[in-house]
């Protein structure tokens, strides 16, 4: 095992594997930065190139290395411009962007990147540690458990609602309704498609997220007529401060990383869900949540990176992809002659460890790179808005378009952009809508499957009962805590 661990390390550092890794990192760096343009779409674009690579390790150095860094650099765009760099980086906007507006972009970026590296480490470590127990771990979760976990996610709407719980719940409800759009897999009937073929395949998450979050911020920037930062450039509040924040909230970062791993392991749930759960967990009980609390940056920053390690667990152990991007990666691995599955844990253990090393090395390199240019990046927030807006709009629409290469996605972006603008104007929270949209489909499918497979018996499974109890505790926890002592609740440092 140790041999394989060491051998994996040298395989990644060997030439030309390391060269491919650097190319992957370079591509991933920009893909992450550009709003909307996501790791998944880019992976699909890059796939034909990887067909010409001969060695499996070289192929995933390129592809996995690219994927690994998109999560980190995606956070940067979310924080600086309030525009999600990746679908899985949207949660960083909630507190990261207010920090930028306050002139604290440096600190937010420092925190996001440090927590990202942290998350990647935890993810890679979990992948390495779980190798002996991978199979039972993945088999632990059946459809009933997945359904309850989706419901658990829905309950986080309460935490994400912000000022008005009622508005939050209504927004979440709208999200759940939007999730019903499309061809229903159970009966094949068309729901809310209004004769449009585009709506057959359900709403894609990217145009909705980009529309809801990016367009209102761009409009706001245009209306304000200033730079993103509302305070003049005096002194950049240090990047080092952000790094320190990560260690100040060490256990919070660890917990949020583990949330990411956990959601990565589960099929269908991934970084898109994990970020919101980690955010909700991070800001639970934090007084200035949504106004620039660093906990709201650390949580999703760590979680959206650690999911990559989690995603790889079922992919490696069963040849069953843990997410859309893993499905594409799996296809690439098959072509270069690697067949993920049990043999990855025996004969090809060194290759599995090489994957662990790719995750770690790629994130360390990109973090180093980011820290070098962080001050320049943060300086963008002091540029006059009118100079930024054309570029932002351009990239926002390019990003939405590349999700499916469909012009209809641009219309969806515009529609949700308008909706997002009015939601901001009238104080309606946007995260519950996104969470409802993502989880609605999962919850519906797995409720159907559970009932079709087990009748009503699944409700009495011990695992299901335990998960229900956990859900109730999560919902009731803030209330209980509040009763125990208001003084403690109001201390922003105590972020449990």
């Amino acid at each position, binding site marked *: 095992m140790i041999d394989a661990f060491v051998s994996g390390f040298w395989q990644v550092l060997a030439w030309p594997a390391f060269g491919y890794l650097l190319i992957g990192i370079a591509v991933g760096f920009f893909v992450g930065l550009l709003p909307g343009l996501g790791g998944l779409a880019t992976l*699909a674009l890059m796939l034909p190139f990887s*067909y010409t690579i001969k060695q499996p390790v070289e192929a995933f150095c390129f592809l996995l290395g690219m994927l690994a860094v998109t999560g980190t650099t995606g956070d940067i765009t979310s924080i600086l411009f309030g525009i999600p760099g990746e679908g899985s980086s949207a949660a960083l906007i909630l507190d990261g962007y207010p920090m930028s507006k306050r002139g604290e972009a440096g600190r937010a970026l420092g925190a996001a990147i440090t927590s990202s590296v942290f998350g990647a480490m935890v993810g890679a470590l979990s992948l390495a540690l779980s190798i002996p127990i991978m199979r039972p771990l993945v088999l632990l979760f059946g459809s009933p458990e997945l359904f309850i976990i989706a419901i658990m996610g829905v309950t986080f709407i309460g935490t994400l609602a912000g000022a008005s719980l009622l508005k939050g719940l209504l927004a979440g409800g709208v999200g759940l309704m939007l999730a019903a759009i499309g061809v229903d897999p159970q009966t094949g009937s068309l729901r809310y498609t209004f004769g449009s073929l585009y709506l*057959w395949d359900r709403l894609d998450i990217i145009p909705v997220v980009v529309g809801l979050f990016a367009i209102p911020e761009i409009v706001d920037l245009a209306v304000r007529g200033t730079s993103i930062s509302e305070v003049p450039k005096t002194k950049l509040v240090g990047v080092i401060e952000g790094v320190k924040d990560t260690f100040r909230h060490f256990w919070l970062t660890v917990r949020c990383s583990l949330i990411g791993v956990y959601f990565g392991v589960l099929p269908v749930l991934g970084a898109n869900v994990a970020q919101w759960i980690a955010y909700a967990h991070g800001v639970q009980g934090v007084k200035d949540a949504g106004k620039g609390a660093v906990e709201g940056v650390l949580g999703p920053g760590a979680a959206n990176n650690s999911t990559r390690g989690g995603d790889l667990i079922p992919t490696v152990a069963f*040849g069953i992809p843990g997410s859309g991007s893993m499905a594409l990666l799996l296809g690439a691995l098959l072509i270069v002659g690697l067949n993920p599955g*049990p043999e990855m844990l025996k004969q090809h253990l060194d290759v599995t460890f090489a994957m662990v090393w790719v995750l770690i090395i790629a994130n360390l390199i990109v973090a180093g790179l980011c820290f070098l240019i962080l001050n320049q990046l943060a300086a963008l927030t002091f540029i006059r808005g009118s100079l930024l807006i054309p570029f932002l709009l351009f990239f926002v629409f390019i990003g939405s378009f590349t999700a499916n290469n469909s012009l209809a996605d641009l219309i969806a972006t515009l529609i949700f952009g308008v909706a997002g603008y009015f939601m901001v104007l009238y104080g309606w929270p946007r995260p519950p809508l996104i969470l409802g949209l993502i989880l609605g489909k999962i919850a519906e499918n797995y409720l159907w*499957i559970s009932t079709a497979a087990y009748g009503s018996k699944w409700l009495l499974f011990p695992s299901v009962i335990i998960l229900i109890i956990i859900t109730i505790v999560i919902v009731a926890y803030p209330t209980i805590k509040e009763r125990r002592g208001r003084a403690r609740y109001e201390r922003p440092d105590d972020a449990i």
Partner: protein
Amino acid sequence: MLRKFKRLRVSGFKGLIPLTLYLFIPLSLYFNLSTVTSACAQEPFYKGKTIRIVVGLSAGGGYDRAARIVSRHLGKYIPGNPEMIVQNMPGAGSVIAANYVYGVATPDGLTLLTPHNNVYLSQLAGHKEVKFDLLKFHWIGSLENDDMMIFMRADAPYKSIGDVVKSKEPPKCGSTGVGSSDYVMSRILEETIGAKIDNVVGYPGSSEIALAMERGEVICMGLTVSTYFTREPFLSWQKKGFVRFLAQSGRKRNRRVPDAPTIFELMNEYKTAATSRRVAQAMLLGGEWARSLLAPPGTPPDRVKILREAYEKATKDPDLVAEAKKGRVEVSPTKGEELQTMAKEGMDQPPEVIEQIKKLFVQ
């Protein structure tokens, strides 16, 4: 309105071997005697042109992979050696792509379509969103056979498909959705021989169903034969003897699944009524023309001819076969003319058959 939107993802490879150009100019002249004079005066139509293959599924999947393999080799067999690019236009089970190529793209032999195998089911079901008629397309050829099979955990009480027919309690099979090939196959077994299968529908993909099989959430599933024999976890299953094959959809038994009866054998055994037979025949068509290439109606006949001949040659090219093998595509091509006949026979069904299909598969 939306169906008209062009989706652009363009990438492809040059397949240029200038020498073959000179080889094929005389050949194309020979086949196009009527245009000899004009062809002498000018270069082959395809010279300097780019052929676009519109794939009705997203990049990275099996259809995309197959189309890209074809795109890298087809050009060198077409006089003029055109460049070939692949464009993905996913959505609505390829209906969007088929509508586009049928109604929007210019039928000049430069735009071709690779739809989902089962896109014809949307047409048979009479969805009003379907704006194409698959029978009017010119079929160029198909790359594979997608024979399906149903298999079950070996520790389940049912030992054969006959046990399922006799059993009072139907086995639970996992499936992705009502339009999917696995679901179609199980409904056909019920329709033709009365083997009732309880479909647990809604899994995101075959990988998730495989997991559910391992957990015992469901005990059976349907999958193409080629996928089963090239992917995990199925390879391990095969080694362990984890599953037993119950039935297969091909006309002949697949050599790798010698013990499972075909639906056609079963229909003879159970003396299936004529209407149900026709339903089965129509519903199983998709497997026969996997990864097919079509040209829209109105494409000049001489170009259809060129494309068909080039396709036939390209699918015999050792380079293509080797590359396909690497990409886990098992090449077993069918000629365009055969597909055209097959489509006509399979889709031209009397109203009662169509009614039955709608009843079975459309709500």
